[in-house]
């Protein structure tokens, strides 16, 4: 049994002019110790997927269909009180901006002890001991002294490491990291990514890494979902996706990467024309068809299903022509 299983998830936001479907038929699994990447451009639905799992979709948003199973237990039907035992305890989340996540008027120690005591009946003294151990784990020097300091006394990279320590403090089974290094410099990003990878192995955790950066996904994750306009359009082993993307959008994304993608004779990057549609004006048929270079009539009429590829195990693509030679 998978640690986390998401089945046909649909999230929509009830707006004045009708329902906006932010996630449409999203299914995937996350195994123990597995590192799963969720990649896509802004507005693709990556963050909503993360939020939906721990039931943080706020009004007017709502899970309208599908199931979320964590260790076989339905999460989407839990009451708020029941969910609190899971969220921040069994499943932790790390957000993008380390300055916004920490409370600026409380010391690091208070915030760590508070988190732990919210989920476990233990004394402050014991909680403090665990906090120090977790800070050591994320390589904060002299953790005992650091506990009494405030967030502004730490640098951006250290703050993000403290947030990881807080996320780890209850020994969760899953960490959902939503763009954890986007606000950080590359050298710090490399440190944080190395750290997350090590922790998954040493602490027995599953990691769901949400990011727009294909480079980070390629370095850290084993499996990846590519999202576009609220749908999963390709799911594959990360190495397979990078070496041989099957969906035209994944291929376009990889080819558009400066320094890696293919360039034409005049050293121009291969670009995907246009931009991602607003969720209120998604084209009928395949949502990518207006930007696709191999679009046929069927693409304008029929929504392609996410289907398993014959030649590749654990590889799913939603394109009418996936696995076939490009028709031109």
């Amino acid at each position, binding site marked *: 049994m998978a640690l986390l299983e998401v089945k046909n998830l649909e999230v929509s936001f009830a707006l004045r002019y009708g329902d906006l479907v932010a996630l449409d038929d999203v299914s995937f699994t996350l195994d123990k110790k597995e590192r799963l990447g969720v990649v896509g*451009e*802004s507005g693709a639905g990556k963050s909503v997927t993360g939020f939906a799992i721990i039931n943080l979709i706020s009004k007017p948003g709502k899970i309208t269909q599908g199931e979320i199973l964590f260790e076989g237990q339905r999460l989407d039907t839990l009451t708020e009180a029941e969910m609190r035992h899971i969220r921040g305890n069994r499943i932790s989340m790390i957000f993008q901006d380390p300055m916004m996540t920490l409370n600026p008027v409380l010391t690091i120690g208070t915030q760590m002890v508070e988190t732990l005591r919210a989920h476990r009946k233990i004394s402050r003294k014991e909680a403090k001991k665990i906090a120090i151990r977790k800070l050591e784990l994320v390589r904060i020097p002299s953790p005992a002294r650091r506990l009494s300091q405030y967030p502004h006394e730490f*640098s951006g*990279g*250290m703050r993000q490491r403290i947030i990881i320590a807080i996320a780890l403090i209850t020994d969760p089974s899953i960490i959902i990291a939503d763009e954890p290094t986007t606000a950080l*410099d*590359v*050298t710090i*990003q*490399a*440190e944080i*990514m*190395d750290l997350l990878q090590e922790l998954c192995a040493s602490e027995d955790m599953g990691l769901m890494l949400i990011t*727009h*950066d*294909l*480079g*980070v996904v*390629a*370095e850290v994750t084993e499996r990846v979902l590519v999202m576009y306009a609220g749908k999963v359009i390709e799911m594959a082993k*990360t*190495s397979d996706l*990078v*070496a041989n993307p099957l969906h035209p959008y994944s291929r*376009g*994304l*990889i080819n*558009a*990467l*400066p*320094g*890696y*993608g293919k*360039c034409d004779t*005049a*050293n*121009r*990057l*291969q*670009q*995907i*024309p246009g*931009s*991602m549609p607003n969720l209120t004006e998604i084209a009928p048929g395949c949502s990518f068809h207006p930007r696709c270079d191999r679009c046929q009539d069927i693409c304008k009429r029929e929504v392609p299903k996410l289907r398993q590829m014959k030649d590749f195990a654990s590889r799913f693509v939603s394109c009418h022509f996936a696995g076939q030679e490009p028709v031109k």
Partner: protein
Amino acid sequence: MSDSIVIIDDLVKYFDISGGFLEQLQFKSGKVIRQKTEVKAVNGVSLEIKKGETLAVVGESGCGKSTLARTVIGLYPPTSGQVFYRGQRIDNLSPKQMLPYRRRMQMIFQDPYASLNPRKSVRQTLEEPIRFHMPKSNKKEVKERVAYVMKQVGVNPGWKDRFPHEFSGGQRQRIAIARSLVVDPGFIIADEPVSALDVSIQAQILNLLMDAQEERGLTYLFITHDLSVVRHIAARVAVMYLGTLCELATTAELYNNPRHPYTQALLSAIPAIDGRKKQHIRLPGEIPTPINLPKGCVFHGRCIHANDRCLNEIPVLLQVGDSSGSYVACHGVEEGRV
């Protein structure tokens, strides 16, 4: 020297952050003294930008790359040092004398949501610089020029009466680029022009910048933190750390053979998509504050090769290699230790 369009000579920019008179007073060894606190953002940077090239300045946040750009174009007055545009010194000109150079040097900013006036239509945004810098042009010329530039940047000229909020981020950046192009500049400073954009849009904008460079013979000073973008667009790269240049080389040379220990660490940190597992070089410690710069080499506190000389003597940018035009400011490289 004649092929240099912009020469930056020993540019220094400090920002005074000491506040009011009372805040400047300090009690030291029995006396009250008045002391100013300064952020030393740029410390003696010299660069030559050749006509028609793209020179990239890379570095992490707080290294002074944006301050350098803004000082070069005259948005900040330099603390000391000189800036030349085609042989003419421009950092000490009066606003009136500076006018013709303001037209020749343009800037593109990072966030197209912030750099376009939300209350002005595209037409108003694009016509204003023409009216200001080319007062002799008549209505028809202005109109034609706007339409031509809009077409060049890939925005339908029929949308000229729309407002910024009606466009996507990529299209807004196109309009911001159009605004810098309407006055026929020779030199453009692009400060993180694609950092706020999605990957697929980023490629479109980079291609557009390269097309415009080819058509108009533009020279770019390209400020960015994204080393993959640099590799694609730039001919030469200058690496900055804490307000100083630590390495200057052609792009191929820098990526294949980084010499400065900081450049090596920076390059090893780029996430590689091709799955080759690279060993990240971990830099000990944190970037020191630019208020109290470390003595000697600014990088010594985080460098594994640092010795006594690095602690005390500031390294200068020296030419290395045969004739590739690579410059490195490192005692270790100079002595052959690194």
